[in-house]
């Protein structure tokens, strides 16, 4: 009886796996883009955290598409490519994703300004975590001005990224209805 029940449960739902892979692909691509953006002299040493904007959006509206493994891989690749402390950003992002899962219902009901403030807090928390780990590991505090620039520019880009992702989401929903 139990086997029969789990069989029907599996049959009820469509697998999210392809969508999760797609989200992971986009997330990794954004991490690579972040690294690439640093070649632009304007973003030297402080490229905006595009992957964090993406993660924040997906975690609020489609958290089932971003399993913790995706967040881990995203963070680890960023750590490797930026030669940061291995696991530093990965841990920060995973802790953030855990915290967001806990308060996802409240975030879903918030208006845009609240989301922006929430993102500012999240972004600051991620950077602060990395800064603390860096300071403990190296016994030295890096220059804070690039960090502040990175934080500020990421916050400025948040509305643009949010609107873009919202539009893409609406487009995909429309296409799904038409099909």
């Amino acid at each position, binding site marked *: 009886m139990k086997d029969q*029940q*789990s069989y029907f*449960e599996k049959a009820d739902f469509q697998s999210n796996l392809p969508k999760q892979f797609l989200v992971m692909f986009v997330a990794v*691509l954004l991490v*690579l*883009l*972040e*690294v*690439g*953006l*640093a*070649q*632009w*002299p304007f*973003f*030297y*040493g*402080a*490229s905006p955290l595009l992957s964090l904007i993406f993660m924040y959006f997906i975690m609020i509206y489609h958290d089932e598409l971003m*399993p*913790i*493994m995706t967040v*881990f891989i995203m*963070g*680890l*690749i960023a750590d*490797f*490519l*930026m*030669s*940061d*402390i*291995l*696991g*530093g950003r*990965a*841990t920060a992002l*995973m*802790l953030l994703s*855990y915290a967001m899962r806990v308060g996802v219902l409240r975030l879903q009901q918030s208006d845009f300004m609240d989301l922006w403030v929430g993102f500012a807090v999240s972004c600051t928390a991620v950077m602060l975590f*990395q*800064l603390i*780990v*860096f300071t403990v*590991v*190296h016994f*030295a505090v*890096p*220059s804070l*001005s*690039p*960090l502040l620039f*990175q934080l500020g520019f990421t916050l400025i880009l948040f509305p643009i990224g949010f609107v873009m992702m919202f539009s893409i989401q609406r487009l995909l929903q429309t296409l799904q209805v038409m099909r």
Partner: protein
Amino acid sequence: MRPSDKAKVRHRRLVHVVLIALSFSLMFIGKADLVAMRDLRMSSNDFLAPVIDFVSAPIRGVETMAEGIRTVASLRAENVRLQAENDLLQRWRRRAEILESENQQLRSVTGTVSDEIRSLITARAVTAPGGSFAHTILIAIGNESGIAAGDPVITSNGLVGIVYEVGRAYARVLMISDINARIPVMLASSSWPGLTIGRNDEYLELAFLPAEARPEVGELVLTSGHGGILPAGLAVGRVDRVDGDDIRVRPAVEFRNLGYVSVLIGGTEGVDRSDLSQGSFFTPLPIDDDKRLLEGVNASGTRQ
């Protein structure tokens, strides 16, 4: 909630905890600088560098286009400036030829052995520092071309850093602006030795200068060659600000526009390059020691 859902939630929580623990422990394992971790980093560099290269091609394209537009707009002024600079350089060239000839004569008289000649390989910089916590770049050259950890990386303007991780086709360079970089230097006009320390910023800190040293704004800072890893006489930067003990150096190389760099190969035979981390190789000069040290200057700064 169905039993299968409960199991799913439990499983998800377990994965969460395991991955966070793994990631947290990676921070300490990575710091331990194990050979396996270094190999993992190098392999990931080799694997991911071509992908970054591909992804950042449009960014480079836009940057090149913007640079082209800027150049066209200032073409006439640039031409006048270049002509003046060319005249000046020709005068300097004549002066350099005279000095080189004089230098050779003096070397032959004193019997000085010249430094080991190093060969030069040029490579493209694939990445630039993207974060505030590390100033490193990936270059498109690896151990296939014969480079090794510890090789200096330069441009025509001066020192960029040293190679510290080498993969098959890519290598990672620790820039002199990184917080872990310690470069033994000397002031060009007075020969006082010191160390430049990176701050993950656009400036370097000049430290461990003898108390008698009086660095001046605009003074050239060169590598001293102490330790044998870096050859003497590479331009590191110019003194930008002197505020008591706080001396700031602006790097000679404009790191924001690094397109191509050159790696100096060879010339360090017999030098132990196994540990280049954390500046342990570049020990500061002892304070209470009057032994003969760099350039005929002891630790108290007295010429001997």
